[in-house]
């Protein structure tokens, strides 16, 4: 055909004009154009698809962490259980009472078993969490008069019972390889049918500290630890960062010293976070002798890490305040310092706040430096001061991720959801502040 001829001729003769007008070549070029554009879209699609996969995988694996199976049982608290050898009821004798017995008796009564065998008794004990001791004891310490009466208590079910109710234990598996035997499953089904055993919202995940059993492991210590750390960051990194940024933007002469500061800030922003952990370990713990695992040390390390972010954001916010504001203030007789504190900083405040929140978000999700300073501790009781041992939210996730039990996998993902919700709320606040106070000069 004629067109192919021209193509061949165009190629050999090098006739540029003919080549450019060649419909086949044009077609190819346009196809290449569309392909190129498609690559861009595909790249974006991959990134977004990953985001979707990440969130769905976390949510599908993690939502069940917010449910926990509880027994609702009428628990008898006979006086005899709480008496010591002299027949007195003391704090000590209450602590030493056999709560397993009490819970088991309640279960036997509820199921209406006449004469339970030894084996049945053991199987029943396995169906309760070890955390029930604490639960019943707390009721008694709250109100001593319940001793000798029968009261309804919601008791935490064991991890295996919980897994069965959530459908992650397969009933079709042969009895020998199943965590719960047929008899236990029959009891569980009966209890569920009677409404004595049900899944409820798991407040425990926000109330408990570290535990070796998933059903009594919670984030309380981690949340408190993270809170103390964020407090330290707000109290240290923000004032120091804003002051440094104000000096560099408004006062600093252009000389070697200020150049050195600038280079330092830019490089610190890119230093791997784990190196800050090494700094914390060597300086705060070994040299200054601060306690290991303390949230104060974690807060100090995170403050140093967040400082460049706060400085850079604040400098940008201060730079965005137009010079006319400064000139007007100086013109009516304000000093440079008055101009800064009365006019520039208040106008830069939204930007500073946004930058601060972004720094906090970064600090809240940071794990590696905290591992270095020994925040990977088994802390059962919440710290009341920043000097006591604590963990942090991401560190708790890391610790749970290393546990093998099924219950911990779901809790790991649940904790991740909690962390992401915190980060989301903080980011949303930053965006809101930016939208609300953003000013075009």
């Amino acid at each position, binding site marked *: 055909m004629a067109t192919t001829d021209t193509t061949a001729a165009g190629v050999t003769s090098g006739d540029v004009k003919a080549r450019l007008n060649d419909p086949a070549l044009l077609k190819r070029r346009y196809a290449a154009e569309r392909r190129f554009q498609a690559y861009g879209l595909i790249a974006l699609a991959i990134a977004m698809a990953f985001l979707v996969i990440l969130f769905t995988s976390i949510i599908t694996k993690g939502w069940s962490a917010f449910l926990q199976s509880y027994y609702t049982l009428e628990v008898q608290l006979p006086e005899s259980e709480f008496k010591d050898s002299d027949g007195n009821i003391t704090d000590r004798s209450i602590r030493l009472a056999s709560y397993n017995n009490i819970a088991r008796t309640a279960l036997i009564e509820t199921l209406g078993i006449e004469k339970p065998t030894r084996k049945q008794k053991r199987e029943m004990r396995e169906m309760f969490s070890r955390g029930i001791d604490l639960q019943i004891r707390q009721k008694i310490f709250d109100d001593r008069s319940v001793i000798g009466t029968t009261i309804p208590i919601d008791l935490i079910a064991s991890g295996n019972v919980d897994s069965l109710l959530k459908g992650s234990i397969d009933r079709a598996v042969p009895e020998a390889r199943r965590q719960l035997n047929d008899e236990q499953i029959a009891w569980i089904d009966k209890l569920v049918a009677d409404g004595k055993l049900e899944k409820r919202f798991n407040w425990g995940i926000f109330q408990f500290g570290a535990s070796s059993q998933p059903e009594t492991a919670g984030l309380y210590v981690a949340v408190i630890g993270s809170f103390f750390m964020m407090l330290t960051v707000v109290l240290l990194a923000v004032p120091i960062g804003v002051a440094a940024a104000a000096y560099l933007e408004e006062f600093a002469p252009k000389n070697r010293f200020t150049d050195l500061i600038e280079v330092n800030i830019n490089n610190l922003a*890119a230093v*791997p976070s784990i190196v800050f952990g090494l700094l914390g370990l060597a300086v705060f713990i070994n040299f200054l002798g601060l306690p290991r695992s303390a949230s104060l040390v974690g807060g100090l390390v995170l403050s140093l890490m967040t400082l460049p972010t706060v400085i850079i954001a604040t400098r940008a916010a201060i730079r965005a305040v137009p010079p006319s504001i400064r000139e007007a203030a100086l013109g009516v007789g304000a000093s440079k310092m008055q101009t800064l504190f009365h006019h520039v900083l208040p106008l830069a405040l939204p930007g500073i706040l946004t930058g601060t929140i972004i720094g906090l978000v970064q600090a809240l999700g940071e794990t590696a430096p905290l591992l270095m300073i020994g925040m990977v501790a088994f802390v059962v009781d919440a710290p009341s001061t920043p000097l006591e041992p604590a963990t942090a939210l991401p560190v708790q996730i890391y610790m749970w991720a290393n546990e093998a039990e099924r219950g911990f996998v779901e809790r790991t993902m649940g904790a991740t959801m909690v962390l992401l919700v915190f980060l989301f709320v903080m980011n949303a606040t930053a965006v809101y502040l930016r939208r609300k106070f953003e000013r075009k000069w």
Partner: protein
Amino acid sequence: MSTTLIILALLIAGIVAFIVGIAKARSASNTPDTKMHSRLGYYGAYAGIWTVLPALILVLAWAGAEKTLITGLVKAELPSSIQELSAPQQNLIMNQVNAIAAGLPRLSAEDYKEVERSRLGFSPMSNAQTLLQDKGVVLGSAPEPFLISAAYDTAEYRSLSRWIITGIAAVLAILGFLYAIARIRPRLKARNSVEGVVKGVLIAASTVAILTTIGIISSVLFETINFFQKVSLSNFFFGTVWDPRFSSVGRELSGAEGQFGLIPLLWGTMFISIVALLVAVPIGLYAAIYMSEYASSRFRGVAKPVLEVLAGIPTIVYGLFALITFGPFLRDVGELVGLSISASSVLTAGIVMGIMIIPFVSSLSDDIISSVPQALREGSYGLGATKSETIRKVVLPAALPGIVGAVMLAASRAIGETMIVVLAAGIAANLTLNPLEPVTTITVKIVSQLTGDLEFNSPQTLVAFALGLTLFVVTLALNIYALYIVRKYREQYE
């Protein structure tokens, strides 16, 4: 008084001085024709600063020096048998002394006497141990008398030092206050002085960045030097075997030194980073090109924040995803095609890390591509080039140096990344070219050598600092070079 209490007291004194200063300034400006140099508040602040600042500086300096001073004094009085022990053993003893000294004030008067009696040998030492134990001082065995005496000395020096510093702080605060009040008169340039102090504070704040860098370098360097006193340089830098052994008592005697070869760790780090860059650079670059050259501003308004979300997700979450979802997924896919892929393979960690650094590549490349002058594009269009031809043949070559800088910044992120590899990469140090096998990285080893019980003198612990220094130097070099390239590139088009 404790340091915190002294500081609180000083702050209260400062507030009082502030109020008095204002009152003094007001009474000085009573006559209608006097004109004060500064506003009243500045006179108050002037008085407050003179009251608080000198005393505060002294108190903080004292608090820093106190411990070393007292330890030195107490150490000098210990029996000579103790003086001959090695420094770490002495430290251990001093820790015990400090613990007992902290417990002593908590004893009741009667118990205190009992401890005193056992120190002098009138009653068994175990009595003192139980009494102290009740107050939360945990001692392994019955303390020797010299420990208790040293603890007495420590406690005594401590209370003496408290009295001295409280007294000096009070005197300084009062003197400062009187001086400032005496100076307040209409011609005093209070504002200038106050602003000078504020400026000093601002300068001090901006030097924190320098101090941090110095802190990082000196602390890591110091421990690294310690490490190289125990392990040879060639063992670390040229060794191909990583086998640090666990530190245990007697291990050094048996002569079984660990092997601390950096090369397998360095290779593992590079390998995972290369895989990550192979994922992140094409995706990030194409995304950046699409967003800066093709996308409508509405599309950009959606896509850009989504990419930023990727950057905002904590790395522990990526690590968890790699560990729980992606690793097993890859392994199953491998089984389907007949490949045996380890769940913690280079691919797992590399791909997930690649996704994490997409936003670092894309947002910086986006800026750089947007800053290529429009005239270059228009010239190309004028010659009849299509948009993609313009981008490939004109825009990208023009933006190349900047993009290289962006990729290097991303690479330094990948090298320093910790949590993804801690959770998803291997533990064994392999020198392998097979991306389906696990390798380990520098950061993984830093974490594993430093978590758990530490003994601060063993090379097993100190090696973490040598690894940290290596990491710091490598990332710093990459960053400085990348920032240099990016800056130079920007200047070219400005």
